[in-house]
């Protein structure tokens, strides 16, 4: 039973078709790397899953519930409930600059889940330790490095206890020497069997951590399957050409 099921998803901006009938299934505990050239629609696909983009046709099912069924969306209240199972980490971190690191972690559980504060505090301490930022809990985002910011962003997403984590090019805005610390956190999440969907240009990470890879080009899924198999024995010329460019 797939935890995410997409069928015939279509999305266009005016005349431009960005997603041309995407279908895919993602199972629980999968770590899926979505790869492909810029402009292939990877980010749009990811953003559609959590309702940051409205799609024009097709269906998206999360945990067996329809977010969109044949192009028509669920009611706002249902959308909120369905997307609450997912967390998202952005390329540019998008931390709240007016809140401290702990403030960033604690605001959503406080406002959206209305959990008791002691429970929230305990979880935020635990997660900050997990991403190695316990000493930074009272710092403001402006005083953190890019790698630290992204680790805070991951912890912030985990505070809502999602079943699925979506990553939109989590290391693309980082200096190369800072990508390692973020990928390390993601690897640990993979070990803990977190279901993750990662749009990435980090081929090394995709190869090492992903259980499944999806290669997109020009708004279509060209090929998908076991990550190692896709990297080592790509079936299509477009995949071969892309991997050749990216892996060298």
């Amino acid at each position: 039973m797939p935890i995410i099921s997409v069928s015939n998803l279509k999305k266009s901006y005016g005349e431009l078709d960005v997603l041309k009938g995407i279908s895919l299934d993602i199972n629980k505990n999968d770590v899926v790397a979505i790869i492909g050239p810029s402009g292939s629609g990877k980010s749009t696909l990811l953003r559609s899953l959590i309702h940051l983009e409205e799609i024009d046709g097709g269906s998206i099912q999360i945990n067996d519930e329809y977010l969109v069924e044949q192009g028509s969306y669920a009611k706002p209240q249902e959308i909120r409930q369905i997307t609450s199972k997912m967390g998202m980490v952005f390329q540019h971190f998008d931390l709240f600059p007016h809140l401290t690191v702990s403030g960033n972690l604690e605001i959503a559980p406080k406002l959206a889940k209305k959990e008791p504060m002691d429970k929230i505090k305990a979880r935020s301490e635990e997660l900050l330790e997990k991403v190695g930022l316990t000493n930074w809990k009272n710092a403001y985002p402006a005083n953190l490095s890019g790698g630290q910011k992204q680790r805070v962003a991951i912890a912030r997403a985990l505070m809502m206890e999602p079943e699925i984590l979506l990553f939109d090019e989590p290391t693309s805005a980082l200096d190369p020497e800072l990508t390692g610390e973020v990928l390390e956190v993601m690897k640990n999440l993979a070990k803990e069997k977190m279901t993750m969907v990662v749009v990435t240009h980090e081929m090394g990470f995709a190869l090492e951590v992903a259980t499944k890879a999806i290669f997109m080009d020009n708004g279509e899924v060209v090929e998908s399957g076991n990550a190692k198999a896709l990297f080592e024995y790509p079936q299509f010329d477009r995949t071969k050409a892309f991997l050749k460019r990216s892996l060298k």
Partner: protein
Amino acid sequence: MSSEYIISLLKPMLEGAQTTILLFIIAIVLSIPLGFLLTLAVNSKVKVLSYLSHGYIYVMRGTPLLLQLLFICFGLPMIPGVGEYLVLDRFVAATLGFVLNYAAYFAEIFRGGLLSIDKGQYEASKVLGMTKWQSLTRIIIPQMIRIALPAVANESITLVKDTALLYAVAVPELLHFAQTAVNRDFTIMPFFIAAIIYLVMTLVLSLFFKYLERKFKFE
């Protein structure tokens, strides 16, 4: 020039300054929230509301404050039919004029603040499950205030000085008493005293806003 003379001048001028300060406080306290509501109206999806508030801001910024004050104090009572019900106390009428005018300027300042907030902030609050209201009040507005603070400080200092326009609608305030003394005693000393009182008021205000800026630095 004796110190006794200066003290005798100070008494009415400081009383005048009280009117100035009272007007300033009422105008700030009312025009900032009103300005923010205007910003929301400008950004509203309800087209009529957006057009109306655009028009309002255009008129308020596009005509002299002095004209607006004269209109409210002397123009409204002349409207046939309803005029007799629109005779307001001068101070109340002038305060109303200041609030309506300054709200338009604050609205533009806040709009600028909102524009400079990255769309990632809205998206991050949304995927974390916050409602639109929660994200507006807890994420967007605090950042907007920080961005708008220097411009709000500037506008507030202008407001202190604009209170001198009360002179034109014959509400006795600081400048009025200075001018009276100048005419009566044929000395320019009252002007200097008035200038010093204005400088003290704007200094206090500048220091207050510097303090706020430090407090909301988020570093």
